[in-house]
């Protein structure tokens, strides 16, 4: 950075600009009234519980708050409706011409925020970019089985699969998938970094500014293809580090809508006339990740013992204040067609059997191990409770080590851990919950778990186009997995959105597709 520029960065003008932007995040009652007077020209949709949004480039994004924004800026070929059924978004229609060939007809007259029309070229470019073998997109594995993408005409695109691949459609939907359609004319040979800073999509809202750790400002995309959406011309997305603070902000009139709610407060908030609470069983999974390459978790009996040594129901009550359901596997109940409703014995609290398993194990009571966790809030208490309960039942000596989320994540990937709380939110296909986490070369498999039969089943599921039958396979696979207890499934948490009574039209999806739902909001 040269002198002039560095001087410029601290010139008063920037100060003012920065501060003004910074402040928009938080408002006093009357500045709210001021806005209300303008008949709600700005929807203040707080992203609670996160303070960091790095990249807004779909292919590169990984953190959930990043997607909260991306979902508002971009569209995919498909999307989920409120019943979680796949419907067309940028794609008008699609057909399955052969087990391995998909053809999508694109919607006509869709334009990017910069006015350029969206065509099949952009779709091809986007998907090629995401799946590029040498690329660094965290989502590339989802599209690994694509063999070729062909532009038939400006509004038709064909996707050729190496082998039949059932999850493809879900992965082309506007979720945490990275398949959001990006403009070729900007990115082909363009500067990816600047795109990540000033993303351009086809979404209902276009990017205005981003003040790191403070807020993201969006404004309506006049050329949006859904008639008279978006209803509300401007959106600001304040970043509020603590969920609890999010509530305070809402009650204090500083924001209209939150992305999440602190579990502790939900019951009270439901009673509170000043707040509307949306709640639904979440598409997510929370578990204790175990490193099979280190003692004591290299012993299947020990792992099973753990799995039965604590009370999942109690955990839901204590850690989530009841805002969730005890897990019966990795696939959440919200994916009913793939979820086993009958409680698996290995996933229920059974001290006797747990002790019995410990007998079989080569590690006795008094075994020591460290459970990683992070941050404040319920993550910490999650680990605390787990360790405490297990120690009480088995007489083991599990110890909690609090670190910081990023660090935990890199330690997980480096397999530099014994056990750690972990979880995935916003995954929309059973394949993500199972194949990616359990398959020998699933990219979310940080546990070193490998079971031929499970792998086989998961591969078969990918090829099975009939949803019912596919679901059965997953149930089978999970029952098999349960025997090895590769991870200790704990619970799924509900997803919540809080809003002021004035907010109407916001539809909540189980994967908390926050930004994606803003376009339909009619009033605030």
């Amino acid at each position: 950075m040269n002198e002039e520029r560095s001087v410029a960065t601290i010139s008063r003008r920037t100060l003012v600009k920065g501060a003004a932007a910074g402040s928009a995040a938080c408002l006093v009652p009357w500045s709210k009234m001021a806005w209300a007077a303008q008949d709600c020209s700005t929807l203040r949709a707080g992203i609670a519980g996160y303070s960091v949004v790095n990249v807004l480039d779909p292919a590169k994004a990984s953190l959930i708050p990043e997607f909260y924004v991306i979902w508002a800026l971009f569209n995919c070929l498909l999307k989920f409706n409120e019943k979680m059924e796949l419907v067309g978004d940028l794609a008008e229609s699609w057909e399955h011409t052969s087990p391995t060939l998909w053809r999508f007809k694109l919607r006509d007259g869709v334009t990017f925020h910069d006015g350029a029309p969206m065509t099949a070229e952009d779709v091809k470019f986007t998907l090629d970019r995401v799946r590029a073998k040498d690329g660094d997109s965290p989502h590339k594995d989802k599209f690994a089985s694509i063999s070729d993408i062909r532009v038939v005409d400006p509004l038709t695109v064909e996707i050729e699969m190496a082998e039949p691949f059932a999850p493809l459609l879900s992965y082309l939907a506007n979720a945490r998938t990275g398949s959001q359609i990006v403009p070729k004319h900007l990115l082909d040979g363009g500067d990816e970094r600047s795109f990540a800073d000033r993303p351009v999509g086809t979404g209902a809202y276009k990017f205005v500014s981003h003040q790191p750790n403070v807020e993201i400002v969006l404004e309506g995309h006049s050329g949006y293809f859904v008639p008279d959406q978006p209803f509300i011309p401007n959106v600001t997305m304040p970043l509020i580090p603590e969920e609890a603070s999010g509530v305070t902000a809402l009650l204090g009139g500083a924001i209209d809508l939150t992305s999440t709610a602190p579990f502790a407060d939900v019951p009270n908030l439901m009673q509170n006339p000043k707040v509307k609470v949306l709640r639904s069983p979440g598409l997510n999974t929370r578990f204790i990740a175990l490193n099979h390459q280190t003692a004591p978790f290299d012993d299947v009996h020990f792992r099973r013992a753990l799995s039965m040594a604590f009370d999942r129901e109690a955990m839901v009550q204590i850690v989530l204040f009841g805002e969730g359901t005890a897990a019966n596997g990795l696939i959440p109940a919200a994916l009913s067609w793939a979820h086993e409703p009958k409680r698996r014995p290995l996933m229920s609290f059974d001290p006797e059997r747990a002790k019995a398993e410990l007998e079989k194990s080569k590690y006795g009571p008094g075994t020591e191990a460290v459970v990683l966790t992070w941050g404040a809030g319920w993550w910490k208490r999650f680990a605390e409770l787990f360790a405490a309960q297990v120690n009480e039942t088995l007489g083991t000596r599990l110890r909690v080590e609090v670190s910081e989320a990023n660090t935990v994540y890199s330690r997980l990937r480096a397999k530099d851990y014994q056990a750690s709380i972990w979880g995935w939110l916003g995954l929309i296909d059973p394949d993500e919950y199972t194949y990616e986490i359990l398959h020998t070369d699933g990219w979310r498999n940080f546990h070193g778990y490998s079971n031929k039969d499970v792998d086989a089943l998961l591969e078969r599921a990918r090829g099975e186009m009939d949803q019912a039958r596919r679901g059965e396979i997953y149930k089978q696979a999970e029952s098999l997995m349960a025997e090895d207890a590769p991870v200790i499934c704990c619970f799924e948490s509900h997803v919540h959105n809080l809003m002021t009574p004035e907010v109407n039209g916001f539809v909540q999806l189980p994967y908390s597709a926050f930004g994606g739902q803003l376009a339909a909001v009619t009033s605030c």
Partner: protein
Amino acid sequence: MTGLAITGILLFAILVVAHLMPYSPTEMSFTAVLKPPSWEHIFGTDSFGRDVFTRVLYGARISLLISVCGVALAMSIGTAIGMTAAYFGRLYDLVAMRFMDLLFSFPSFVLALFLMVILGFGVVNVMFAIALVYMPLFARLAHNMTLVVREEPYVQAARATGQPSIRLLLREILPNIAAPLMVQASIGVAFGIIIEAGLSFLGLGVQPPTPSLGVIMADGQEYFRRAPWVLTMSGLAVCFALLGLNLLGDGLRDLVDPRLRQRAE
């Protein structure tokens, strides 16, 4: 002397009463989650159904321990630096004291925070953070007083008899500057507790399940709308402890400094 009384009560509570409590500070009871204050739980219970009062007692013990160790460390190092600097003077004095001034120029909590980032979280590091924050205070105090005492005839005399400096510092000077240092220490302990609480409150300090005052408050803060008593009660306990220590410090100061004492009349 109120300070002494309160501090006495405090010590009695954390050393004796803690053991008389029917509850464990760490053992969870899912039947008694988030119970508001009542006769069997005067501070109520937390999200794990643990008796907050019991936790506060044990927490106070740990916080106090951390703070005392930190301050003790600060006092020994700081005093050593201050005394030697004043005694030997010259460049060493200049460099050492300037460095202390530098440390003194950092906002206390910022310095602690910075150190936690470097060293990582945890009990011992909180102790070091406190020590680092208070070292310059003691260094300055010791420095100034040594400068005075050094000129006293008996010190000069001892010097003349060619006593080794170390011995001189320990035998002649230290005893004469000890009292004010102790005063500073008792107040330092109070501030130490605040620092510990602050760091742990942010989640950068002591880590659960170790129940330090800061940890308890951090936990209470998470659901303080649902169960305000956890945060408020533990906070009140902190105030009580600090009040005791501060008053104690003032009392000691009056005792030590006759000018101030006579003014107190």
